[in-house]
C-alpha cells in the first residue's frame, strides 16, 4: 500500500512539475525600447508630400496660450493620470513609445493576415465575391490577397507620411513645448524626452489618419481600430508628451489628410480589379488567338483569376504608360525547348525535396492566412528601422516609400501576368506536386520576385549597409518559388529584375523629396 502511495505521489508530482514549466512565447517586438530619434527632422514640413499640394493644405489653428486656463487644465489632466497609472496603462505607454508608425504597421499586418482567406467554393462550384458594402457577411471584405494588401499598405503608409509631414510643419510653426518640458511636475513616463514641439500631437495625427483610412480598407474593423486609436492618444497624454489639445488638433489633421487619400483610392480603379466573367474569358481568347496555351486555375472547382484588372490601378511612383513600358520579353512558349528545360528543372526540385529547400519555401510562402509578401518586407524593414533611431516622420516617409514601391510592383507584375497569361508548371506537367499552395493567377512573372526585387532596391537605398543582405533575401524569395514547384526560373529572374526597376523609381522619389 505504501508503494502505491509513493508511486502515485511521484507521478502526480512529475505531472505538476511538467505542467508548471513555463511556456514563454512572446512577440519579438513586445519589449522594444522607447523611440529615441537621433534627429528630430524639424525641417520635415518642407519635405515633398505624396498627395498634399502644401504642408498647410489643412489649417490647424494656433494653440491656446500656455497661460490660458484651458492649457492649465490640460496639464492637470496629465498630472492626475500620471499619479495613478495602472499596470495596463504603463504597458500601453511602453507599447506605443516604441513608435506609432511601427505599431500601426504591425496592426495592419495583423489585419491583412486575418483577412487573407480565399472564399470557399459554393455548392454550385462558383465563388462569391467579397462585397465592400457588406463587409461582415461571408465572404468577408476585404480578401487581402497580395495586390489588395500591397495597395492597403501603400495608401495607409502614404497617408501617414503626408499627415506627419503636415504635423511637423505645424509643430515647428507653433513650437509648443511638450508638457514634460514645460511643466517640471509633468514627467516623461516611459518615453524619451525630446525637444520635438508637441502641438499637434504626432501620435494623434497617426491615430486619426490611420483610423480614417481603415474605414475604407478594413470596413469591418472600424470599431476595433477606433479603440486602438484612442489608446494611442491616451498613451501620448499619459506619457507626458502631449496635452488633450495637442491630441485633438492632431487627430483632426490626420483625418483630413486621410480624406485626400480616400478620394484618390476611390478613383484608382482597384474597385474594378475583380473583373467580370467576360473579362476572364477574354484573357483566354486573346492568348489562344496568339497560338499560345492560356493559363487556367488549378483549383477544384476552378476559381476565377485573382484581381485580373489590378494592372489598371493608378500607381504612386509613375504613370500608367510606365507600367506598360516595364513589360519584359514574353516567357518561353509552352512546348518550346526552353520551356521544356524550365519545366524539367522545376520537376527535378520537387522530386528531390531537401529540408533546406522546404524551409526556404515555408519561410517565404506568405500565402493564405499571412500578411503576404509585401507584409513580409514590411516586417523585414521595420525590424531594421527600429535600429536606426528615426523620427516618427522619417519612419513614415521610409515605410511609405517601401509600400508605394510594393503597390506599384503589384501593378506592374499583374500587368505582366495578365498580358502573357502563362501557365504554371503544374498545368504544363500535372505530375509536379508543390510545397506550397499554387497562387491562383498566371505564372510569368513571379509576384514574390517582383515584390522582393522592388523592396530590396528601395530598402538597400535607405539602409545601404544592409543592401547586400536585402538583395540576397530577394533572390532567396524568388528561389523559394522555384524549389517549391510553383514557378519556373525565368519567372523568378525576370520578376526580380522588373522589381529592381520599380524600386529604382522609388529611389528617384526618395532622392528628391528633401528628406536626405
Amino acid at each position: 500500500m505504501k508503494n502505491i502511495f509513493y508511486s502515485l505521489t511521484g507521478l502526480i508530482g512529475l505531472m505538476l512539475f511538467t505542467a508548471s514549466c513555463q511556456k514563454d512565447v512572446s512577440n519579438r517586438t513586445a519589449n522594444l525600447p522607447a523611440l529615441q530619434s537621433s534627429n528630430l527632422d524639424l525641417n520635415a514640413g518642407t519635405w515633398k508630400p505624396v498627395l498634399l499640394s502644401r504642408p498647410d493644405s489643412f489649417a490647424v489653428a494656433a494653440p491656446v496660450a500656455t497661460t490660458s486656463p484651458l492649457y492649465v487644465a490640460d496639464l492637470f489632466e496629465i498630472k492626475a493620470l500620471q499619479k495613478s497609472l495602472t499596470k495596463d496603462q504603463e504597458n500601453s505607454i511602453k507599447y506605443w513609445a516604441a513608435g506609432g508608425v511601427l505599431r500601426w504597421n504591425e496592426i495592419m499586418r495583423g489585419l491583412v493576415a486575418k483577412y487573407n482567406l480565399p472564399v470557399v467554393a459554393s455548392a454550385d462550384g462558383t465563388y462569391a465575391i467579397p462585397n465592400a458594402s457588406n463587409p461582415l457577411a461571408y465572404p468577408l471584405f476585404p480578401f487581402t490577397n497580395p495586390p489588395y494588401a500591397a495597395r492597403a499598405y501603400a495608401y495607409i503608409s502614404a497617408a501617414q507620411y503626408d499627415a506627419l509631414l503636415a504635423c511637423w510643419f505645424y509643430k515647428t510653426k507653433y513650437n509648443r513645448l511638450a508638457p514634460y518640458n514645460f511643466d517640471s511636475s509633468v514627467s516623461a513616463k516611459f518615453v524619451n524626452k525630446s525637444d520635438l514641439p508637441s502641438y499637434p500631437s504626432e501620435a494623434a495625427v497617426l491615430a486619426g489618419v490611420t483610423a480614417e483610412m481603415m474605414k475604407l480598407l478594413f470596413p469591418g474593423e472600424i470599431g476595433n481600430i477606433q479603440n486602438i486609436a484612442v489608446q494611442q492618444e491616451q498613451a501620448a497624454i499619459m506619457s507626458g508628451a502631449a496635452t488633450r489639445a495637442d491630441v485633438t488638433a492632431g487627430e483632426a489633421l490626420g483625418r483630413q489628410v486621410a480624406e485626400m487619400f480616400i478620394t484618390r483610392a476611390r478613383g484608382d480603379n482597384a474597385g474594378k480589379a475583380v473583373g467580370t466573367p467576360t473579362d476572364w474569358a477574354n484573357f483566354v481568347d486573346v492568348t489562344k488567338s496568339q497560338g499560345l496555351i492560356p493559363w487556367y486555375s488549378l483549383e477544384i472547382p476552378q476559381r476565377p483569376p485573382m484581381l485580373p484588372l489590378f494592372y489598371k490601378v493608378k500607381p504612386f511612383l509613375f504613370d500608367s504608360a510606365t507600367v506598360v513600358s516595364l513589360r519584359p520579353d514574353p516567357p518561353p512558349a509552352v512546348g518550346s525547348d526552353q520551356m521544356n528545360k524550365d519545366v524539367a528543372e522545376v520537376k527535378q526540385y520537387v522530386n528531390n525535396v531537401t529540408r533546406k529547400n522546404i524551409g526556404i519555401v515555408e519561410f517565404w510562402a506568405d500565402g493564405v492566412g499571412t500578411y503576404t509578401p509585401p507584409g513580409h518586407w514590411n516586417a523585414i524593414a521595420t525590424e531594421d528601422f527600429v535600429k536606426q533611431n528615426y523620427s516618427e516622420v522619417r519612419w513614415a516617409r521610409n515605410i511609405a516609400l517601401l509600400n508605394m514601391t510594393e503597390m506599384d510592383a503589384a501593378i506592374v507584375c499583374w500587368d505582366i501576368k495578365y498580358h502573357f497569361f502563362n501557365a504554371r508548371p503544374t498545368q504544363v506537367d500535372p505530375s509536379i506536386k508543390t510545397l506550397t499552395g499554387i497562387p491562383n493567377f498566371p505564372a510569368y512573372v513571379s509576384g514574390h520576385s517582383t515584390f522582393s526585387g522592388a523592396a530590396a532596391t528601395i530598402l538597400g537605398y535607405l539602409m545601404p549597409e544592409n543592401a547586400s543582405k536585402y538583395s540576397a533575401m530577394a533572390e532567396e524569395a524568388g528561389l523559394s518559388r522555384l524549389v517549391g514547384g510553383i514557378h519556373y526560373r525565368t519567372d523568378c529572374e525576370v520578376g526580380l529584375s522588373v522589381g529592381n526597376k520599380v524600386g529604382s523609381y522609388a529611389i528617384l522619389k526618395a532622392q528628391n523629396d528633401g528628406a536626405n
Partner: protein
Amino acid sequence: MKKKTILNVSLALGFSLVAMLAKSQTADDAIMMGKKQWCNGLTYMYSGWKNYWEGTTKRDNKNLGTVSTQSVMFMSTYGITNKLNAIVSVPYIWTHASAGTLHGLKGFQDIEMNIKYEFLESKLGKDGHLSLFAVGGLSTPLQKYENDFLPMSIGLGSTNLSGRLTADYQKGIFFATASSAFEWRSDVTIDRTSYYTGDEIHYTNKVDMPNQLYSNLFVGIRKPNLIVQAQLLNMYTFGGSDIRKNDMPFASNQMNMTSVGGHVKYFFLFLPNLAVVADADFTVAGRNVGQSQMYSGGLYYVVSL
C-alpha cells in the same frame, strides 16, 4: 501468467489532420513483459481521411481529396523486471494527398520512450484480478522535419513528456482497461517568422503548444494466446485555436478526437514467440482533425535474454 509474455501492439490510431498517429499505444495497455524478455516488432499502418473538421464544422476539400498517412514503426519493449518495462518506438512516415497539387512529405518522426511500472496487482472478487500501472513517457523529433506544412507535414515537432495511469481488471477471460495520460508539450519552432492564429498575429517563430489528455477504454477477452478487444479512444487538447474557414491547419490548433475500433493479437501455437496484431480504428467525432479510418498490422517477436 502467460499474459506477461504478451505484448500489446494496438498501435497508432492515425487520427489527426497531421500525421501524429505514430503514437505508441503500448504505454496504455495492461500488458507487461516478464523480466529479461525482449520484444521487437514492426507495424505498418495506413490512415486516411476525406472529411475533416474546420473548427467544429465538418467539410471535405476537393483540393486535397483523401489525405493519407502511412507508417512503418519499429517498436522494442524490454522487461527490466516483471513490474518494470521500457518501451521504445521509432516511426517512419509518409503522407499523400489524392487530389490537388500538394506534395507529400516523408521521414522519421518522433522517437518515443516509455517506462511502465505495475505498482499494484491483486485479486479482486471471485476470479477477478486488478492491476494498476503508472507510465512516464518522453517523445521527441528524431530530426527537424517541416512542421508548418499541414496537413502534409509528418508531425508537429514538439518534445513531449507524459504521465499516465492505467487500471486493468480481468475476470476469467474477460477484461477491461481504462487509461489516461496527461501530455505536456514543448513550444515548437517554425520556419516562418510570424503567424496568425487564435484571432491575433504573433511576431515570433515560436509556437506555444497546448497540452493534451489521452484517454482510452478497452473491453474484450484476453487468453494466453489471443487478445480481442473493442476500444474507445479520446484525445483532448487544452486550448489552442480553431482552423478558420478555408484557412490552413496549424500546429497549435485545438485537436480533439474520439474514435472507436478494435484490436486483435494472436500468438501462433507452433511459434509461441511470434505475435501477429491487427487494428482498425474510426474517428467518430473531432475538432480540427481529419475523420480518419485507420488500419494497421504488425509482427512481433519475443526473446528471453
